[in-house]
């Protein structure tokens, strides 16, 4: 019963979001929320490997980009619909994660971070110089044969679905055997091995899963932007942004990336509307410094602890009051 009450709020909120396009809000507003969904998807799936497992990947935008290019090529050459093409996109991203992850997941900490960073640069440069993939000219996709408002709504709903799915996947992982295994790898990989955990196997599974969702999202995103260029879809800043979003919210739980993605997207948007871009970015950068210094475990944990401390203080003060 308690469970049902607890889930009423989020479920009704999701329904509210789902009905939003019917009210025909301004296109700008819809595309902003669409972008928030995208970041939720990316940050949540990054968190599977980055937050839960403790492997700081800066290469996640590559999996997104691979998805974009896969479905774009499938559409151009075989006329495959974006929503079907998204599945092979996800699969190809996972395959890339498997190939890359197999050697790279042996590295730890900053070394893993750097190697994944290089992966993005290499793939970006290769795509730029490969005419079959459009090279540095990019690819123009034909628009879908429907009214722009309708197609926007369809993209919106799909991404809403994907965002909900990625949050649910993260939540599921966190509360199962799989998640506990990943957490033990994050805390101490050798100890995890003494507990019968095949760490290499578990890590690669997490990496593959965390590449699949961005791949699918990328497959659909290809049609949303309709003009595809390596600078857009292999932008290292996206990679860094999703890492920051996840860690900003707190990488240890499924809620962290969600909160981080929503919060930072909104802040970013507001800042860029009201003040000139340089100042907006300065405030943005200063925020990261502040979070790392004052809330090293992310804002979610910070507020949880803060509330916890208040509770404890309350229970401690009461006996003193009685004595008085």
């Amino acid at each position, binding site marked *: 019963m308690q469970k049902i009450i607890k889930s009423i709020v989020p479920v009704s909120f999701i329904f509210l979001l789902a009905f939003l396009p019917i009210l025909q809000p301004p296109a700008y507003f819809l595309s902003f929320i669409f972008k928030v969904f995208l970041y939720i998807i990316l940050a949540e799936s990054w968190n599977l490997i980055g937050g839960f497992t403790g492997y700081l990947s800066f290469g996640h935008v590559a999996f997104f980009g691979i998805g974009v290019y896969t479905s774009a090529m499938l559409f151009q050459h075989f006329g495959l619909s974006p929503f079907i093409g998204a599945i092979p996109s996800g699969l190809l991203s996972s395959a890339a994660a498997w190939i890359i992850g197999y050697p790279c997941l042996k590295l730890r900490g900053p070394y893993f971070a750097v190697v994944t960073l290089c992966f993005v640069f290499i793939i970006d440069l290769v795509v730029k110089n490969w005419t079959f993939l459009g090279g540095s000219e990019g690819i123009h996709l034909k628009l879908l044969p429907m009214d722009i408002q309708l197609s926007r709504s369809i993209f919106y709903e799909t991404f809403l679905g994907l965002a909900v799915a990625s949050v649910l996947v993260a939540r599921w992982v966190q*509360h*199962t*055997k799989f998640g*506990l*295994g990943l*957490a*033990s790898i*994050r*805390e*101490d990989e*050798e*100890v*995890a*091995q*003494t*507990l*019968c*955990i*095949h*760490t290499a196997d578990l890590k690669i599974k997490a990496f593959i899963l965390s590449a699949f969702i961005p791949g699918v999202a990328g497959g659909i995103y290809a049609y949303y932007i309709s003009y595809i260029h390596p600078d857009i879809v292999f932008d290292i800043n996206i990679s860094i942004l999703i890492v920051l979003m996840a860690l900003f919210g707190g990488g*240890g739980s499924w809620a962290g990336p969600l909160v981080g993605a929503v919060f930072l997207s909104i802040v970013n948007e507001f800042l860029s509307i009201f003040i000139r871009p340089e100042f907006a970015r300065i405030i943005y950068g200063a925020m990261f410094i502040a979070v790392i210094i004052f809330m090293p475990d992310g804002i979610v944990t910070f507020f949880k602890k803060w509330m916890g401390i208040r509770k404890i203080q309350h229970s401690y003060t009461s006996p003193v009051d009685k004595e008085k």
Partner: protein
Amino acid sequence: MLKGTNITKIFGGLIAISKLDFEVEKSSIVGLIGPNGSGKTTLFNLISGFLRPEEGKISFNGDEITHLKPYQIARFGIARTFQIVRPLKELTVLDNVATGVLYGRGTADIKEARSDSLDLLRFTGLESKKDTHAGLLKLADRKRLEVTRALGIRPQLLLLDEVFAGLNQKEIDEAIQLIFRIRREMGITIFMIEHVMKAIMKACDRIIAVHFGIKVADGPPDEVANAPKVIEAYLGTGYVTD
């Protein structure tokens, strides 16, 4: 049960363990002693698969485990603790144990694993701390957790690396009782490294002494403690002068 023959381990030209033979019989408590740097922890790392020997063979219940990976050896039923305790800090005490239960016993039911873990925590006396983050425990409790977590994989053999170090007399006595109970109630064989001589004399059926990677004595506690080579190794600071 556990048997090593002719084991040799070399670190960059330095011989850490040289042609060592040892055996641990089922349901015994065997101690491994020796001065610092005599190769005790190296031997444990070889048994649990973190290191590979240059020569020799280790077998467990007749199966050779010399070249297996740590997780495979753990699945065979050999659990270990670390000399410097290594709790999974951000996890609760309960989840530290539950992780081992889940993966060691091959179940996927997290609720069942947690209730099994709770039983184990009750057994080792950590039940009241079950929801504490493992990183916040005191040393004595960390050591208890280290042992409980190892028990979680339902081992046949438990390798204990200096569990008494840093504990006070009362805590040591409790730990010895716990070791006896682990053998009696769970039927687990114990192979332990120890520095606290008094404690190990009390706890073990048999003691193996090593010095510079070579076995210098092997037998009942009293016999080993009085063996000239052992006294020589410890330069008289051992049990005899205590």
